[in-house]
């Protein structure tokens, strides 16, 4: 067992897969320039030492090309791991991801495969509105993509390895405040959870959530940074005698409904916590699906705690107000118990 940050775990996953399979390569902006950053959050730092700059490919600032090249390489025998510095820039390559990556297999009647991975850091970190968005829900709406969001080092390594071996395009959402990036790429107010990672190889299948904390009164589904806020809230609520079960879905497409339903059978109350803005967030899909399949298990309305429907403001005072805090989760949980 080694202790690792999420950035290190992702790096190890990439390293192991690149050693295992020479078709795997990385491309992105500033991912491992000599003396550079190793990507915006150090995930690919130093990999070119072992694999060279052909397989750790620094690109021009050309997002359309990065995504398109990943699609083309994936269709013809390679396994690209592409990277954007901030998830927000996925909008610049949206067409390639939505119209090509997601549809090539289908449009070809299943004769073409697109085994690519698209990595994107998300989360608000006082950078202002264009470097703060959580874009999961733009992509869960696109059939043909798989969407994962690891929140621990263990999951980061196991899920990324699974993504690399998947024959379909997988978008990996990683949280800026969870990486544990070091040096001059360190993030203020980062949580940077360090976790145990087995020395022996392991893979984590998609579609299996985990219960991060057991409880009996309320089920909270939360991903990435919001998972930690939910756990923080659960501690506070416990002191008030409210027992919260916290579920980390780990992957959004596919999503582990069984786990959530088995949990609400017990708690009969559901809250979803998400960092993306509320309207049409992935939490809406979960809520709607549960309202259709498991309504009868619920004793109270389904609550979503999400970022308010505004662009992310720069001022920390305002950013902290719009992004769900442990306090807001606690407050919503109290209301929910009274409902």
């Amino acid at each position, binding site marked *: 067992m080694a202790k690792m940050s999420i950035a290190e775990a992702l790096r190890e996953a990439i390293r192991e897969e690149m050693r295992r399979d020479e078709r795997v390569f990385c491309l992105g902006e500033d991912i491992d320039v000599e003396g550079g950053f190793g990507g915006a959050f150090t995930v690919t730092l130093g990999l070119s030492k072992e694999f060279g700059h052909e397989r750790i490919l620094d690109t021009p600032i050309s997002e359309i090309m990065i995504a*398109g090249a990943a699609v*083309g390489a994936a269709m*013809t*025998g390679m396994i690209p791991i592409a990277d954007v510095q901030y998830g927000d820039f996925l909008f610049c390559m949206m067409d390639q991801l939505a119209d*090509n990556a997601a549809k090539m297999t289908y449009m070809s009647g299943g004769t073409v495969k697109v085994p690519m991975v698209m990595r994107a850091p998300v989360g608000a970190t006082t950078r202002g509105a264009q470097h703060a968005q959580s874009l999961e829900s733009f992509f869960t709406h696109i059939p043909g993509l798989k969407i994962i969001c690891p929140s621990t080092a263990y999951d980061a390594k196991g899920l990324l390895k699974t993504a690399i071996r998947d024959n379909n395009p997988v978008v990996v959402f990683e949280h800026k405040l969870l990486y544990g990036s070091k040096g001059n790429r360190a993030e203020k107010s980062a949580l940077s959870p360090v976790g145990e990672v087995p020395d022996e190889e392991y893979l984590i299948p998609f579609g299996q959530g985990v219960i991060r904390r057991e409880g009996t009164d309320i089920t909270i589904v939360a991903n990435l940074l919001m998972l930690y806020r939910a756990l923080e809230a659960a501690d506070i609520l416990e002191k008030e005698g409210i027992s919260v079960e916290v579920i980390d879905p780990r992957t959004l497409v596919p999503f582990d409904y069984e786990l959530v339903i088995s949990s609400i059978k017990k708690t009969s109350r559901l809250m979803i916590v998400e960092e993306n803005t509320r309207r049409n967030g992935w939490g809406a899909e979960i809520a709607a699906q549960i309202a259709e399949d498991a309504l009868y298990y619920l004793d109270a309305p389904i609550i979503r705690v999400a970022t308010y429907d505004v662009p992310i403001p720069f001022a920390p005072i305002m950013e902290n107000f719009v992004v769900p805090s442990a306090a807001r989760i606690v407050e919503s949980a109290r209301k929910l118990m009274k409902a």
Partner: protein
Amino acid sequence: MMISIERILSMYEQMFLLRNYEDKIYYMFLEGIMPGTIHQSQGQEACAVGMLYDLRKEDYMTSTHRPAGHCLAKGVSLNSMMAEMFAKSTGCCKGKGGAMHTGDISVGALPAIAITAGGMPVAVGVGLSCKMRKTDNVVVCFFGDGASNEGAFHEAMNAASIWNLPVVFVCENNLYGASTHIRQVINVENIADRAVAYGMPGEVVEGNDVLKVNEAATRAIARAREGKGPTLLELKTYRRCGHSRNDACGYRDKQEEKEWFDKDPLKITKDYIQLNKLATDEELEQIEKKVLQQIEDAVEYAKASPDPKPEDALLHVYY
């Protein structure tokens, strides 16, 4: 030097196939027995055939919303192309792709991409793959004059150049992007002139002369194969058909149309053959009859093919 007889005859045969395949589709489409829309390539046969004639099966091609000629010339089977137009389960995309997405990866024809210039960054990735896998395969990337104004064009051209990739960028300049004349949307004489912005060789080619196209293709493909990097070829050509469906081309100058219609690539090639006595009229007729029969057979094949099941729509979302 003089081209070999069977070479020029088979080029003519291919061009004749492309033309008559499209004409046949056009009539059937007007009859209303075909779903969707059509973007046809009558008049641009010399581009597809000249560029792809010497490509290997292992080489790749990316195409556009106007892919029929490219696909047939790259070796996608006539039957599977026709069946796709009829939305049959025997189509090259099992009826899931349609006229704008035909292709067959087994012969190196990627499913066509209908997003203008959307195939260009993909071609960069294919070139990267050919290079990283240490093959000497190349990619021919087709796009239009209008596509040269897309950001995707710029990003793809630049990347292919700095990475010295085996990509041949082929701009079929048929003077129009839909109804818009290229003169109204670019401020340079030739699209090939844009190659300088990427330190890439650019060449203007008479796109309706299959031999001229093939000569340029030979140079560019050799360059790519030898690892010397990408080339931008601009093939000056013209649509004999509408942009899509039953487009009457009211936006085109009649004089311009006449001049270009006179430069019919099939006629140019046929004249060349006859002038140089490379085949008798009978031999040519033989070829043409054979091709027309193949097309009829393909139509029969397509019509006789089974429809996909509605629930098949749920398959192939993931590989």
